[in-house]
């Protein structure tokens, strides 16, 4: 177990002024539960949070990154004394990109594991199912990555996502990029087996329509397809100025390599999802990723505190070259829940858990803004994150973030 360094404590304090509140709270709940009496609740056992990740599927790496961010948040919180004197515990479930697993896992998390709230799957397809089930059970659930338009509709008001919807964020950004690059023709390659990437395909069509770019080729594949030679050959025949990647980051990386292997010099573009899974994309594609432009909503080099301090500390503690979007979003989700628990001294005991969950819901809806590792975030009426419009260019193996119009 790593010790909390002074720098890490500073990071915790930057994100969690609530710790001071916790330290000052003197009331003793007497072990009796009942009401959100709080203070030192160290006899009450840990606060349990569910976390649903997926070790398989096109967004498996994003999921791993999300899990790492949540674990890091819990590690820091517990190293600093926990919340209300209680540790925070993550109860993790691997959904393996299987809807059926979600259908059984979410009720189990709630009824068997008695989790207070849930960190939702990072991908929109998984989030949509998990959030709907959690909403039925009236458990707050927050995703660190779901960005497909309408993904939260079936599960509001219990669901939230830290991400701005792909369409809201990516369309204006990519339209500006098309104008900036003077693109005339484009090809789109779509993963047909995934609802999120299919939505990305529609998004690109809207971008190209809006910016007057002619779509000369649309090719498809299905997640996990071994080879992209055929698809890229089809696109190469049209020699497009731009190739739009409606793909998970690992698949996008292989497409990029195939594009460059076949000697195509087209500009590769992606939505914010590609930047979110950036490490996987860049590691997978290597030099072929250079020059790729994506929409972005998260700046890993954010110069403003507390984000800057937290990002620097996370890089140091986790040996990261750069903090990924899903990592920071998951970190912030755990800390937001911890902040609520501290501020309200909620016990989340069986007697009060329903009331406390409703309280968390109200807290999340009222956040204005939460200042965390991922920057400032507040939630829109539809539960999606309100984020800045940025774009990212891969330069020397890293995403370099710029503001649109800069």
């Amino acid at each position, binding site marked *: 177990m790593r010790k909390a360094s002074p720098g890490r404590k500073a990071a915790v304090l930057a994100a969690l002024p609530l710790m001071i509140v916790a330290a000052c709270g003197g009331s003793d709940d007497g072990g009796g539960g009942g009401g959100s009496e709080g203070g030192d609740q160290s006899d009450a056992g840990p606060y349990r949070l569910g976390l649903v990740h997926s*070790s*398989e599927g096109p967004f*498996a*790496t994003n999921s791993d990154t999300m899990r790492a961010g949540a674990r890091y948040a819990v590690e820091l919180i517990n190293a600093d004394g926990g919340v209300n004197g209680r540790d925070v515990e993550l109860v993790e479930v691997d959904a393996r990109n299987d809807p059926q697993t979600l259908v059984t896992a979410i009720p189990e998390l709630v009824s068997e594991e008695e989790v207070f709230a849930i960190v939702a799957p990072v991908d929109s397809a998984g989030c949509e199912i998990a959030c709907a089930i959690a909403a039925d059970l009236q458990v707050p659930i927050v995703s660190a990555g779901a960005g497909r338009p309408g993904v939260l509709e079936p599960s509001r008001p219990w669901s939230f996502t830290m991400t701005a919807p792909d369409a809201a964020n990516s369309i204006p950004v990519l339209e500006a990029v098309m104008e900036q690059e003077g693109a005339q023709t484009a090809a789109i390659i779509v993963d*047909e*087996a995934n609802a999120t990437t299919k939505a990305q395909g529609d998004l690109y069509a809207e971008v190209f329509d809006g910016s007057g770019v002619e779509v000369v080729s649309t*090719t*498809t*594949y*299905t997640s*996990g*397809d*071994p*080879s*992209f*030679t*055929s*698809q890229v*050959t*089809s696109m190469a*025949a049209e020699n497009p100025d731009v190739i739009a990647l409606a793909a998970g980051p*690992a698949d996008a*990386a*292989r497409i990029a*390599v*195939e594009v460059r*292997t*076949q*000697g195509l010099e087209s500009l590769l573009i992606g939505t914010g999802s590609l930047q979110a899974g950036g490490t*996987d994309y860049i*590691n*997978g594609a*290597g030099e072929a990723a250079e020059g790729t432009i994506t929409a972005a909503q998260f700046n890993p080099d954010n110069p403003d505190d507390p984000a800057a301090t937290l990002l620097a500390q996370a890089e140091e503690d986790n040996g990261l070259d750069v903090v990924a979007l899903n990592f920071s979003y998951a970190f912030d989700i755990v800390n937001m829940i911890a902040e609520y628990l501290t501020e309200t001294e909620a016990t989340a005991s069986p007697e009060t858990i329903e009331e406390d969950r409703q309280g968390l819901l109200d807290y999340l809806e009222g956040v204005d803004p939460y200042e965390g590792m991922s920057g400032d975030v507040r939630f829109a009426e539809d539960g999606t994150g309100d984020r800045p419009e940025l774009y990212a260019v891969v330069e020397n193996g890293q995403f370099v973030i710029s503001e649109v119009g800069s």
Partner: protein
Amino acid sequence: MLIQQLVNGLLLGTTFALIALSFNLVVGALDRLNFALGETAMVSAICGALLLSRLDLPFVLAFLAALAVGALVAGVTFVLSFRFVSADYHTAPILSSLGVGLVLTSLVTRVLGSDQRRVPTVLDDVRIEIGPLRIVGDQLIILVVAALMTVLLYVFLNRTPWGTAIRGVSDDPDMSGLLGIPVQRVILLTFVISGMLAGASGLLTGLSFHTVSPFTGFETTLTALMVIVLGGLGNITGGVIAAMMIGVIETLTVAYLSATYRDLIVFVLVGITLLARPQGLFTRDTGVVGRV
């Protein structure tokens, strides 16, 4: 573009052909399928990819290492799943080798993680253009190595004493044993050679696809099964032709129809073949069910 896509399909087929050859060798020796060969290819490919990307070893050394790993894994599979299993229990080796495959996948994901591994381009600057046809350096490597391995296998089986022994055991193990051929050692050798072919197929496929994933083992097995059902179980020439057919069909389906129909069309073709010619398109021998 059609010519280019046909060539792409044929090149894809060459990687299928190697793994199908690998399956067919084992079927020839034992009349059993080694369902861990897909995972054997995966493990070999990941080892080769790591040597290429992490240690910057030349492709030739990484390729030889992949062959060695494939041989080792196949040898271990033989001991675990076939050597001591009674011939009376036909399904036991199938289930056992499936289990070995699952263990291999779990081991790789536990030790090396579930990430895809990048296979770096070997001949980055080589690109041959003949009219509308373009072949890149790595495709050239796949073509040459696959052809070389097929020829070497043919020469080994037909021109060496051990190759003759393998063919003898394949035809009649009892008679071969009575003639003094060490049957179990010959079968082990067959497994080792099939593992080497699987290793070669794994790394060449990785080179073609630019990555290898720990989860592709069973998919590889499935593809090989399609090939040997079409080509005829144990029929090496038929297997090569069927592999090329499947490669071309898959490539043209993706290019001109949709990626979602890729497997469907091949499965339909295999289904029709099983109904109409269960012995395969290119053999007059007993059908798949009768052999295994």
